[in-house]
């Protein structure tokens, strides 16, 4: 209850409440970011084209960029379908790897014993190139999708694990004290303090692991060329020295990589509370 009117003491220098509606995106900055690299890429392609044509370079060594683009569009259905397979492996591995790593990180954040047991192994596996395990995974999991997804999952696992542990721990100790002072349960502390604190960390690790999962998928497909996927296409076509098809497959992989990375950035804008981003309407 108030006994007297209270002046707005320090509201005078506070920002005006602004509209929470998201404004229409301004395209100009996007163009200034996208145009220069596109022009540079085009110039590079023209240079290669001139080099191959004028220098009389053998098509077994270097295809003409125009021929690559032609193959890409003429055979688009093939690259698209094989690309979908690679994408499925990559996303499947990413989902499994991220979920498993987040779960373990939540455990590690709560238990020092678990941390001591798990972290050295995590770091050991982290410095080991996990694609070296593909032959083993094929023996264990057969020739289907499973070994490919397993590799993509394993390769994404550790960046997410390390980041998620850091995120779950990045909690203001005063904030933790406040939760304790009202007798909040461990679950409440996790749900309302640790989990939101970890969200920016999880997105940071997703940016890394989304490209890693694609690497894992493609390398695994080299080994399992009967199963399809862009890795398999590259493997098969290079055996016949059909470099146009190899390059066109790589081009499709680039498209997939760009799409995946962009999707993570967009998801981060939508779901992250990071302060350099607009508050999502609620």
């Amino acid at each position, binding site marked *: 209850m108030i006994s007297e009117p209270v002046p707005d003491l*320090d509201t005078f220098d506070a920002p005006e409440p602004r509209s929470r509606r998201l404004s229409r995106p301004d395209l100009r900055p996007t163009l200034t970011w996208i145009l220069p690299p596109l022009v540079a890429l085009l110039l590079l392609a023209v240079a290669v084209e001139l080099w191959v044509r004028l220098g009389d370079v053998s098509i077994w060594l270097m295809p003409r960029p125009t021929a690559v683009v032609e193959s890409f569009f003429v055979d688009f259905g093939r690259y698209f379908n094989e690309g979908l397979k690679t994408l499925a492996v990559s996303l499947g591995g990413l989902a499994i790897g991220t979920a498993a790593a987040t779960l373990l990180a939540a455990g590690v954040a709560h238990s020092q014993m678990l941390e001591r047991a798990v972290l050295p192994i995590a770091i050991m596996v982290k410095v080991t190139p996990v694609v070296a395990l593909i032959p083993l995974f094929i023996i264990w999991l057969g020739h289907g999708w499973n070994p490919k997804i397993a590799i993509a999952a394993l390769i994404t696992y550790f960046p997410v694990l390390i980041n998620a542990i850091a995120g779950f721990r990045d909690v203001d100790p005063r904030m933790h*004290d*406040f*939760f304790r*002072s009202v007798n909040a349960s461990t679950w409440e502390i996790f749900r309302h303090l640790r989990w939101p604190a970890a969200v920016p960390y999880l997105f940071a690790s997703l940016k890394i692991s989304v490209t890693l999962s694609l690497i894992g998928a493609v390398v695994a497909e080299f080994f399992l060329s009967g199963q399809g996927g862009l890795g398999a296409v590259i493997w098969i076509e290079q055996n016949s020295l059909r470099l146009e098809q190899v390059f066109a497959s790589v081009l499709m992989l680039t498209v997939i990589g760009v799409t995946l990375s962009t999707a993570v950035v967009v998801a981060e804008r939508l779901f992250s509370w990071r302060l350099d981003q607009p*508050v999502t309407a609620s």
Partner: protein
Amino acid sequence: MIKHPIEPDAEPAVRLNDVRLTYETKEGKRLDAVAPTTLTIRAGEMTALVGPSGCGKTSLLRVIAGLTPPSGGEVTVFGQPPAMAQQHKRLGLVFQEPALLAWRSVADNIRLGLQLNPRETHSSTEIDELIEIVGLRGFERYRPAELSGGMQQRVALARALAIDPPLLLLDEPFAALDEITREQMRYEVQRLWGISHDPTEPPRSAIFVTHSVPEAVAIADRVLVMSPRPGRIIADIPISTPRPRRPEHEHSDRFINDTAIVRAALRSPTTPAVPLDAA
């Protein structure tokens, strides 16, 4: 209405019996943070705890809040161990840093205490009303980072008050603010201290840790002075300025005299406090 009758017969808000706190350093040495302390804080009393930096004020507050177990002695809050006070949400904590959840709006930050441990939520204070009282109307949907330091600290105060705690524990809540805001907040906190309170609960008490003497004298009914480490309470000085207090009171002889007494106690940690102009 701001009315806080100190009830001498009621169950004390806090009782410390020979409480001490010893830390073990990394080299294995023992560090006495708080010397054996016996103390009673009456229900409805606003107590300031002043002392030099590192004297164990904050440690003592953490012991009362049940966040640090004492190395010896007994602590009771409303006649029970601090853990029970936590469980019944009878503690309102405010820290030097606002310590708000960056991803939550102002309103959702204030609501946090009600949301946690929901079975014990007994407050009838409407969040809307509280936002009005702390002067944050229009900022409900803002994120903490969009607010000034003073406004953030108001959010922290409102969050503590939302659960209607009979004991407020304030750990240098204005130390990080600029001087002008800080002087205003002295009177803000006294006003907020008195907002609607469940009559079935004990009258609201507060312990206010600060190293500013004028702040302590302006706010408190009673100033406890602590010595440098190991912290000991070396003076217990009643402040007689009537309530409700206003900034003008800081120019009164009574106020100036009281600050002089507290300063004298701080300056001579071994001898008891003596009024300077003991006339």
